[in-house]
């Protein structure tokens, strides 16, 4: 039954079919570019790597959630508002109301995931586009965050989280650093430099891997295995690829979609918690535009906006490109407003390329 008129596919075209190919090339180009342009600025010293690494990790945490959700065929535009909301819940419960921080963190996760589930439930029940449903939650959550913070504390920035988190058992999971000893040792053998002046003289300039990065790597590994290796991952692809066909073969499409909304909310709360622990405060305007940045990372990573296609590795590389370019422009002293121009251009290129890939796979014209 083989159709002899089907042209044999060239290896190049075959390689094009890997969703993350564009992101791999993009990552390569970005690194080569900044290595040539910004080598002398310290961008590739231990300190510099940590600088853009942390930004990339931030993007990766929310991109992983947005990526799985997009592959399952839905969007969540409320990610940014969710970040502000979760952070504020931690600050209000932990500081303004004086409960232990671990309880505040758990409350933030529970509330955020509940709201994620409600988003998902509305989407699968009404059949409305998730774009509209979560656009509504974008405004509802942002407004609630400001309202709650003002009514609980009379201000929109709530500090004192760091003091409240002192000695807490759960907070270091989000605010701490790991492998401190390794970095001391690296400084001792001269691989990384140490402070030469000030109160921290003699300490290594990088004193550990922030939990933000550990979370990013953990979430990437978890989501990658879930998506590519488990039955549930197959259901995620199926739900996004063709919900009706998936339903006919017995895939619980609604459950898959709702759980992906919950996972996206979980990722947003991880981001929020790490940020609150790092800054020691929560602010009602945190996370602004993060939903779009997450979606851009995922699209650069080769996922289709229409769902059913994409990878976690691609989304992670998208986040890496994002982080390297944003901080790279800072290192090279380029006007930072140009970063947005770059973003727009790269987004457009990525979408055009993804559409072409889709045509290659499905044979559409």
């Amino acid at each position, binding site marked *: 039954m083989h159709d002899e008129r089907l042209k044999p596919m060239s290896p190049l075209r075959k390689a094009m079919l890997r969703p993350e190919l564009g992101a791999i090339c993009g990552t390569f180009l970005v690194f080569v570019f900044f290595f040539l342009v910004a080598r002398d600025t310290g961008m590739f010293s231990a300190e510099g790597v940590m600088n853009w690494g942390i930004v990339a990790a931030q993007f990766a945490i929310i991109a992983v959630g947005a990526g799985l959700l997009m592959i399952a065929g839905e969007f969540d535009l409320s990610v940014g508002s969710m970040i502000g909301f979760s952070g504020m819940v931690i600050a209000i419960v932990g500081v303004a109301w004086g409960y232990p921080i671990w309880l505040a963190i758990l409350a933030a996760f529970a509330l955020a995931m509940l709201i994620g589930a409600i988003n998902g439930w509305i989407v699968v029940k009404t059949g409305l586009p998730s774009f509209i449903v979560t656009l509504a939650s974008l405004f509802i959550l942002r407004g609630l965050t400001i309202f709650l913070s003002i009514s609980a504390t009379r201000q929109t920035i709530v500090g004192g989280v760091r003091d409240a988190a002192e000695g807490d058992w759960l907070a270091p999971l989000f605010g701490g650093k790991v492998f401190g000893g390794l970095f001391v040792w690296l400084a001792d053998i001269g691989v990384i430099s140490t402070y030469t002046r000030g109160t921290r003289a003699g300490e290594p300039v990088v004193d550990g891997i922030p939990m933000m990065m550990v979370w990013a790597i953990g979430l990437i590994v978890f989501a990658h295995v879930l998506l590519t290796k488990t039955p549930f991952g197959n259901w995620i692809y199926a739900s996004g690829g063709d919900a009706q066909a998936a339903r006919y073969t017995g895939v619980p499409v609604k459950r898959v979609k709702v759980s992906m909304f919950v996972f996206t909310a979980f990722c947003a709360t991880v981001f929020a918690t790490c940020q609150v622990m790092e800054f020691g405060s929560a602010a009602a305007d945190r996370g602004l535009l993060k939903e779009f940045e997450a979606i851009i990372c995922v699209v650069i990573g080769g996922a289709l906006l229409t769902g059913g296609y994409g990878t976690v590795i691609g989304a992670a590389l998208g986040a890496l490109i994002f982080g390297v370019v944003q901080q790279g422009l800072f290192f090279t002293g380029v006007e930072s407003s140009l970063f947005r121009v770059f973003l727009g251009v790269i987004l457009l290129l990525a979408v055009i390329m993804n559409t072409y890939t889709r045509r290659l*796979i499905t044979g559409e014209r």
Partner: protein
Amino acid sequence: MTTTPIIELRDIEKHFGPVIALNGVSFSVFPGEVHCLLGDNGAGKSTFIKTMSGVHQPTRGEILVEGRPTVLESPREAMRLGIATVYQDLAMIPLMSVTRNFWMGREPVKRFGPIKLIDFAHANRVTLEEMRKMGIQLRGPDQAVGTLSGGERQTVAIARAVHFGAKVLILDEPTSALGVRQTANVLATIARVRKQGIGVVFITHNVRHALAVGDRFTVLNRGQTLGTANKGEIDYEALQDMMAGGQELASLEEAVAEA
């Protein structure tokens, strides 16, 4: 054909509010036969297959599965009883690989402690094997379904249903969107499935396709059956006439001539 039918529907009526979609339809399928259900658009074919596959419950009438009166509450229940339906455009997800499509919803797993991962080695091997049985040579199990032709997609869907233990296979217009050559391939697949002792319900409005593989023929018109005929008892012209509601095909020709 002395055995009991795998599925038998007696005097099925289905009303949607004031609309009578089916008005006393009887139909049966024996193991190893291809029973063609013919009808023009709006004849009630899709309502009838949805009743057979558990999507709709009949307003009146009786369904017997292997001789036992049965209520098909849901498509899942029907599937459990071995009644599998392959819908025309909803068979496959083009962006996913053949293996992922084949096992969709029923993935084989390997356990690593509490973690269950898809057993891809097993899944790929079985998929390639089943495809080979149906006469499709895949480039590889990870080939996207989108790169297959329409006929091949139908064949993958049929192979999937057969592998998962279908006793009756309901094919909803499997050839209507295909060219001549692909149609021939799908008809050959139907013949292969029949040889395995599976009963096939072949829904079509193309009399030629029906005559090519059918053992029995039932024509549905305006929600009613105009009787069932065995192979060799009826010819092309007669079937075509019955589908047009007993009107002479000549009147069609007149209409064309007048235009």
